[in-house]
C-alpha cells in the first residue's frame, strides 16, 4: 500500500469495491424468487365448469360462477375489503389457494435467503448484512396477515375510510416519529400502503416480494441488483394496475403473462448477476 493521500484513497476505494463485489449474492435470491413467482401461475388459471346434467364431452366448459358467500372465512380475513377484478386479471376467481401458496413460498424464500447469505459469508469471508431485508420481509408478511385485517375490523370497518385513514396515518407517525427519522416514518407508511395493496390485488403478494427486494438492493449496493429490482417493481405495478387503463393480455398468454413477466425479470437479473460473478473470478 502506498503512503501518499491520493494513492491511499485510490487503494482504499479499490479495496472497498472488491469487498462489495465479493459479498454480493443477490443472484441466487433473484433466481429463487423468479421460480417462486413462476410457480404461482397455476393458482391464477380459470376454473372451468359444466352445468349439472350436461355431458362434459358434448358441451364447452365455461368459467365457474362464484359468490362471495362460497369463499372460506380465511379469504374474508385476508381480504377484508375484497379483491380487485378486471380484464388484466384474466379469468381470475377469488380463492384461498394463491394466498396459502404465497405465504408458504415467501416465508420459505425468506429463510432460504437469510441462510444463503450466512453460508456464502462462510465460503467467501465477507458477509452482507441482511437485517434490513429480514425486518422488511417479516413486517410485510405479518402486516397483511394480521395488521391489515385487524385495522380493517377495529377502525376502518367502524369509522369508514374517510375518518379511519387519517387516524391510522397519525397513529403511525406518532409511533415512529421519535423513534428514528422522517425517512423511517415515510418507509413505515409506504410499507403499510403496500400491505394494503397486497390484500386487494390478486397479484398483491408480489408487492410483498418487491418490498423485500428493495431492502435487499439497498444492502447489496449493486447496479445490476438495483436495476433489476426497479424493473421488477415497475412490472409488479403494471400487472396489478394496468387494468385501470383497459389493458388486456393477448388471448394466448392471458393465463400466465401476469406471473411470467415479473418472474422473467427476476430470472434475467439472477442470470446476469451469476454470469458477472463467474466472469469476475
Amino acid at each position, binding site marked *: *500500500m*502506498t*503512503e501518499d*493521500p*491520493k494513492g*491511499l*484513497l485510490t*487503494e*482504499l476505494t479499490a*479495496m*472497498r469495491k*472488491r*469487498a*462489495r463485489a*465479493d*459479498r454480493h449474492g443477490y443472484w441466487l435470491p433473484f433466481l429463487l424468487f423468479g421460480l417462486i413467482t413462476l410457480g404461482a401461475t397455476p393458482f391464477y388459471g380459470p376454473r372451468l365448469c359444466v352445468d349439472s346434467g350436461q355431458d362434459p364431452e358434448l358441451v364447452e366448459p365455461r368459467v365457474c360462477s362464484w359468490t362471495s358467500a362460497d369463499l372460506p372465512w380465511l379469504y374474508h380475513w385476508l381480504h377484508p375489503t375484497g379483491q380487485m377484478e378486471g380484464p388484466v386479471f384474466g379469468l381470475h376467481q377469488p380463492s384461498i389457494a394463491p394466498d396459502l401458496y404465497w405465504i408458504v413460498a415467501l416465508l420459505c424464500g425468506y429463510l432460504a435467503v437469510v441462510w444463503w447469505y450466512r453460508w456464502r*459469508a*462462510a465460503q*467467501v*469471508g*465477507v*458477509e*452482507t*448484512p*441482511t*437485517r434490513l431485508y429480514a425486518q422488511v420481509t417479516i413486517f410485510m408478511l405479518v402486516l397483511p396477515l394480521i395488521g391489515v385485517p385487524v385495522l380493517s375490523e377495529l377502525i376502518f370497518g367502524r369509522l369508514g375510510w374517510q375518518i379511519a385513514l387519517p387516524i391510522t396515518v397519525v397513529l403511525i407517525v406518532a409511533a415512529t416519529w421519535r423513534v428514528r427519522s422522517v425517512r423511517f416514518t415515510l418507509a413505515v407508511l409506504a410499507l403499510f400502503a403496500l400491505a394494503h395493496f397486497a390484500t386487494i390485488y390478486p397479484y398483491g403478494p408480489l408487492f410483498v416480494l418487491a418490498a423485500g427486494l428493495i431492502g435487499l438492493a439497498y444492502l447489496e449496493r449493486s447496479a445490476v441488483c438495483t436495476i433489476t429490482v426497479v424493473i421488477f417493481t415497475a412490472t409488479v405495478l403494471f400487472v396489478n394496475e394496468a387494468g385501470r387503463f383497459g389493458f388486456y393480455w393477448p388471448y394466448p398468454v392471458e393465463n400466465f403473462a401476469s406471473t411470467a413477466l415479473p418472474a422473467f425479470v427476476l430470472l434475467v437479473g439472477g442470470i446476469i448477476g451469476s454470469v458477472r460473478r463467474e466472469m469476475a473470478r
Partner: protein
Amino acid sequence: MSENPTAGLDDTVHQRHRLGVLTIAAEAKRVEFSYLKSALELTAGNLSRHITVLEQAGLVEVEKGYEGKRPKTWLHITDAGRTALAAEMAALRALLDRHDSR
C-alpha cells in the same frame, strides 16, 4: 487561517493497513480474518497486531468461533470505528484538496 487537515488524522486509524481493515469491515456485516489477510497481503502475525490495536481502541470487535472443525475469527466494525473511518477519509480528502489547490 483554517486548521491543517493533518490535525484530523488519527494515529490509530491513519496507519495504512489499519485503514484498510476498517475500510473492508465497514463494507460488510462482518469479515473473516483470512479474507483480510489475503486482501491486505499481510502475514497472520502482522494482521493480528493491527487488529489488536483497533480492538483496544474500540473500533472493531472480534468474534472467535468454529466453522465445522476449523477455527474462524470474524471481525466487525463498531459505531466508533465507522465514525473514526469517516473522519479519517474526510481528513485525507481535505489534505488532497489543499494539495491540489496549490
